[in-house]
């Protein structure tokens, strides 16, 4: 690990100023991904600003009926929150599907959003990787790419985003609240993470020095009828091959409202806008769900080892929608 200075932030604006002023400075949350990267040599910060003692550890109701989640709320506390469990069950389930009890006790809301891909080539500093070292090449493209992207990839990068929580937040139309030198800005979660394009080194639209202070969930009746399904190689404690976050409101046998996002298939949580458009107003039947899944995956491009993800994603979506339909009052 390279040497670094450590500072404990007691004021958010001062922390933003400190990190903004040094190109090689980082914020430290729970550390479950960053400290690992520092040890591997993937991250070599000169200054680490610890933001875990800033007053961002609360979950509060918003006046418009939504919920504000502080950036420092630990994943385990968010998953256990009564309001989240009853009004946004997909979020609680997604959090509980990720990592382990020990890691969820450390990991923060903001840190979960900013965790980086688990692509083995990204984490191995001895091989080329455009995300880690722009311009060096992509080792996954012709390498072991079973876990990699089938949608939205570029010639530069085929990595996938590893978060479960972020997939649920995308389905819930959350907003990321960010503090920068110019003040606060609000970023819709669907625009927060990026597709790789020509700059795979950038996972999100966050500028250097910007600090996530909260994530806000809008009031959403359909969110109460939501669920998360994760397919992985082990029954627990593994990253997703494919996951689906969905919320479904059925009325008189027809789909009234629907929200769908996929995990494990792209460089960002994948909002399934085509599937949603195909479902709105359609009969709440397996045939509609089959067509919606077909539409969403129509442009999927498999790599050498991950073609299985295409039918897996389609089938997982169909199954979750059937489950939500069975559980929903019609």
């Amino acid at each position, binding site marked *: 690990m390279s040497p670094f200075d450590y500072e404990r932030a007691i004021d958010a604006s001062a922390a933003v100023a400190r990190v903004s002023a040094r190109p090689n400075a980082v914020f430290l949350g729970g550390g479950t991904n960053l400290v690992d990267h520092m*040890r591997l040599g993937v991250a070599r910060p000169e200054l680490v600003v610890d933001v875990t003692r800033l007053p961002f550890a609360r979950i509060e109701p918003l006046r418009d009926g939504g919920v504000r989640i502080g950036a420092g709320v630990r994943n385990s506390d968010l998953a*256990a929150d009564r309001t989240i469990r009853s009004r946004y069950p997909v979020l*609680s389930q997604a959090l509980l599907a990720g990592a382990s009890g020990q890691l969820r006790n450390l990991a923060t809301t903001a840190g979960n959003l900013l965790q980086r891909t688990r692509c083995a080539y990204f984490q191995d500093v001895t091989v080329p990787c455009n995300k880690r070292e722009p311009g060096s090449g992509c080792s996954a493209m012709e390498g072991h790419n079973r876990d990699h992207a089938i949608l939205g990839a570029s010639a530069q990068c085929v990595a996938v985003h590893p978060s479960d929580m972020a997939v649920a937040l995308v389905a819930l139309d959350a907003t990321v609240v960010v503090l920068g030198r110019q003040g606060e800005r609000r970023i819709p979660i669907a625009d927060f993470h990026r597709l790789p394009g020509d700059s795979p080194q950038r996972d999100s639209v966050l500028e250097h020095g910007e600090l996530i202070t909260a994530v806000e969930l809008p009031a959403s009746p359909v969110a109460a009828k939501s669920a998360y399904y994760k397919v992985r190689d082990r029954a*627990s*404690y593994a990253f997703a091959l494919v996951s689906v976050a969905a919320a479904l409101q059925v009325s008189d046998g027809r789909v009234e409202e629907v929200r769908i996002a996929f995990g494990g298939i792209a460089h960002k949580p994948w909002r399934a806008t085509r599937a949603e458009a195909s479902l709105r107003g359609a009969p709440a039947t397996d045939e509609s769900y089959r067509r919606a899944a077909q539409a969403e995956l129509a442009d999927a491009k498999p790599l050498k080892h991950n073609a299985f993800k295409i039918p897996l994603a389609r089938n997982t979506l169909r199954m979750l929608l059937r489950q939500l339909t069975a559980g929903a009052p019609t």
Partner: protein
Amino acid sequence: MKASITLRVDGEQRSLQLDTRTTLLDALREHLGATAAKKGCDHGQCGACTVLLDGRRVTTCLSLAVACDGATITTAAGLGRDGTLHPVQQAFLDHDALQCGYCTPGQICSAVGMLAEVEAGHPSFVTDGPTTAADLSDAEIRERMSGNLCRCGAYVNIVAAVRDAIRRGAMS
């Protein structure tokens, strides 16, 4: 860069000077001689380094020691009282819930922390479920303990030990 921190480890207040790069696990083992927490993968994947940090189970290999200044830490060595093993420790012995024993201190700290989470009403991915430990199914125990790997494969007896520890009132 050097830093000075204070930790309360297994009931004892300890002050130490260390490099900011030192993880909590290395601070415990190499600086304070508290070797109950074990170094397995050193990447947060195996759970052998699990301790209770301010009462909650965490892996210590992914925390910078300097960030834990002022924390209270209980390792497996600090769970017993007055020469008596903690009920979870006794249950592990009675059920042969180990072979080589390297993952055991982490398994035990994890089980103690997990049972406290259950008592606090924390759900799991398996069910939204039970609010008391007595209702925990084997599937629940496995899910909630999945962050602790045992390469000897003593899982069957680990689940039995955790179940028995609940019967013995490990929660109280």
